[in-house]
């Protein structure tokens, strides 16, 4: 067994991970700087803030930000902190406003963050305050990919599209290409006493459902087969993005394309009974590519955005200290579906996921106890085993340039996530990360 040394928490060759990364305060503080503040973070979907003045509060790491559509219809991401004493200037989770007003001394900020009102500007400041300099700080970069808004606090970050690469884009396309989607009102939020990485790790995990979710399977709410598919399709991308889970076989995809060929040549946008019919849409095939179109798995947009493709949801795992994570569920529906079909999709989301969901009820305790298991001075010294499938599978490259690992239940997605996590943690800055991150794997993995 290799000894894991400081700065070498992940042993890629042997599939071992140092448990201290799930509880150490210093490591956590480094993650906030080197992963969250540096990376691209999901903010919201544009449908949540359709009009000028609409805002939605979110976080980049533990830095709270206001995501707002300004007077020019541009999406701004502003640090929610008055430059005078640091007080928050927005206290509502979401809503519509004309400006952001500080409840401490009354500084007032326009929707683009510009300081526009200062009580006592003449009598107290004698006009000696450069309002242009003292607006709300802005995220270094804000970009939208097909309506999904992301922001980074690092001015040196590479463009969103380059960061996402084809794997990250594919993850979002698995929702975006299902039609003209919008977020359903209501973001479910709850807290779990677990390290955020253990929540992320779980989304690739098709080993746990049969055990963790045995009771839900027993009720008949979903088939055992759907919870424990024998074939798996793993897709790994640069900067830590990964997709793990089942796929549609090539034969099945051909059948879908034949069966639903007419569906997308007509104005019929209603979702038919098969949840996979959208895969026959030529535009979707074009966008997702010949390999991507067959993915039914769970993508993670590094570091913490799970695309839950079963119910077209996103789950953001927000860090709240090394031992606590907040889960935020965003639910999407195609605007053009009938009210009845939308209702079925929304109820499915409610019944499966969220803190009262039949599946998710049983996840939290496992993750919190796994986190707890990284704290004891002796327990925490024992590395965790991520060896399933290590060295036993091959990356299959398609002519299109897309590649996948087609195999059985495995831990490739988890290993890729921890490998990438370590690369982000070791890199001093973006140019270092660009130079020293792993390329998409080829050959044996």
């Amino acid at each position, binding site marked *: 067994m290799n000894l894991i040394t400081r700065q070498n928490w992940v042993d890629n060759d042997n599939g071992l991970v140092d448990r201290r990364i799930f509880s150490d305060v210093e490591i956590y503080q480094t993650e906030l700087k080197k992963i969250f503040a540096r990376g691209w973070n999901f903010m919201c979907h544009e449908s949540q803030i359709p009009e000028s003045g609409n805002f939605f509060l979110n976080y980049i790491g533990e830095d709270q930000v206001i995501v707002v559509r300004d007077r020019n219809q541009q999406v701004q991401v502003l640090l929610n902190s008055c430059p005078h004493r640091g007080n928050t200037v927005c206290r509502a989770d979401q*809503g519509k406003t004309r400006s952001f007003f500080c409840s401490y001394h009354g500084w007032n900020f326009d929707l683009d963050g510009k300081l526009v009102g200062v009580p006592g500007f003449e009598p107290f400041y004698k006009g000696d305050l450069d309002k242009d300099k003292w607006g709300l700080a802005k995220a270094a970069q804000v970009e939208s990919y097909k309506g999904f808004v992301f922001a980074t606090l690092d001015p040196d970050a590479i463009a969103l599209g380059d960061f996402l690469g084809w794997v990250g884009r594919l993850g979002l396309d698995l929702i975006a290409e299902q039609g003209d989607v919008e977020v359903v009102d209501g973001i*479910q939020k709850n807290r779990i006493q677990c390290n955020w990485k253990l929540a992320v790790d779980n989304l690739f995990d098709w080993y746990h459902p049969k055990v963790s979710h045995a*009771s839900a399977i027993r009720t008949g709410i979903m088939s055992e087969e759907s919870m424990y598919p024998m074939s798996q399709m793993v897709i790994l991308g640069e900067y830590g993005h990964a997709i793990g889970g089942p796929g549609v076989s090539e034969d099945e995809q051909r059948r879908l394309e034949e069966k639903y060929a007419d569906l997308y040549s007509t104005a019929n946008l209603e979702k038919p009974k098969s949840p996979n019919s959208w895969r026959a849409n030529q535009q979707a095939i074009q966008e997702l590519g010949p390999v991507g179109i067959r993915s039914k798995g769970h993508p993670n947009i590094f570091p913490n955005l799970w695309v839950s493709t079963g119910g077209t949801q996103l789950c953001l795992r927000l860090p709240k200290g090394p031992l606590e994570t907040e889960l935020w569920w965003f639910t999407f529906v195609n605007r053009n579906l009938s009210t009845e079909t939308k*209702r079925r999709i929304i109820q499915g989301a409610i019944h499966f996921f969220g803190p009262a969901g039949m599946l998710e*009820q*049983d996840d939290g305790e496992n993750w919190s106890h796994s986190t707890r298991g990284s704290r004891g001075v002796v327990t925490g010294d024992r590395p965790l085993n991520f060896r399933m499938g290590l060295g036993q599978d091959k990356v299959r490259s398609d002519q299109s340039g897309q590649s996948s690992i087609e195999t059985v239940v495995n831990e490739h997605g988890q290993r890729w996530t921890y490998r990438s996590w370590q690369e982000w943690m070791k890199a001093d800055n973006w140019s270092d990360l660009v130079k020293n991150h792993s390329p998409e794997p080829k050959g044996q993995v």
Partner: protein
Amino acid sequence: MPEQSNTEPSNTELSTPDLMLLQFEVEQFLYHEAKLLDERRYDEWINLLTEDIHYWMPIRRTTTTREINKEFTEPGAMAFFDDDLEMLKMRVKKMAAGNAWSEDPPSRTRHFVSNIHISGVQGDEIKVELNFHLYRTRLESEEDSWIGRRQDLIRRTDNSFMLARRHIFLEQTVILSQNMSSMF
């Protein structure tokens, strides 16, 4: 959005003694129901629910006073619970499955109901508003406390009552618990 809190006298045609008797009967029913949940007698609990029950807990958000009418999600939007009888039966079946890990070892719960107010009576149906406190502990040190308001619709049957609607309005926006595997 919940109906406005009704603090006026009950909107019923009942005489005071009749209303007092009904209040007593309703309270006894609610205490019994809470006891069944605390004692994990779910099969008996499910028998108290009508075929058309709607069990619903919307999502609450922090909003400004100006937008307080958008504090709760509307029916049909996202929620924490939006269940019919079939779904509630599945929840109960899950708990009885023997491997529902969030409830095995079992949680220890205590349901309290108070401020019970009969806000309307129409035929066999009694509208009840009340405050609740559901307290849960698990394992060594896990502790959850959910406080809120409920709007129940109780339907009189031959010799007892059944629950036809339960709308639950929690005081929390972010649920400060790893799950909500208890019934409210």
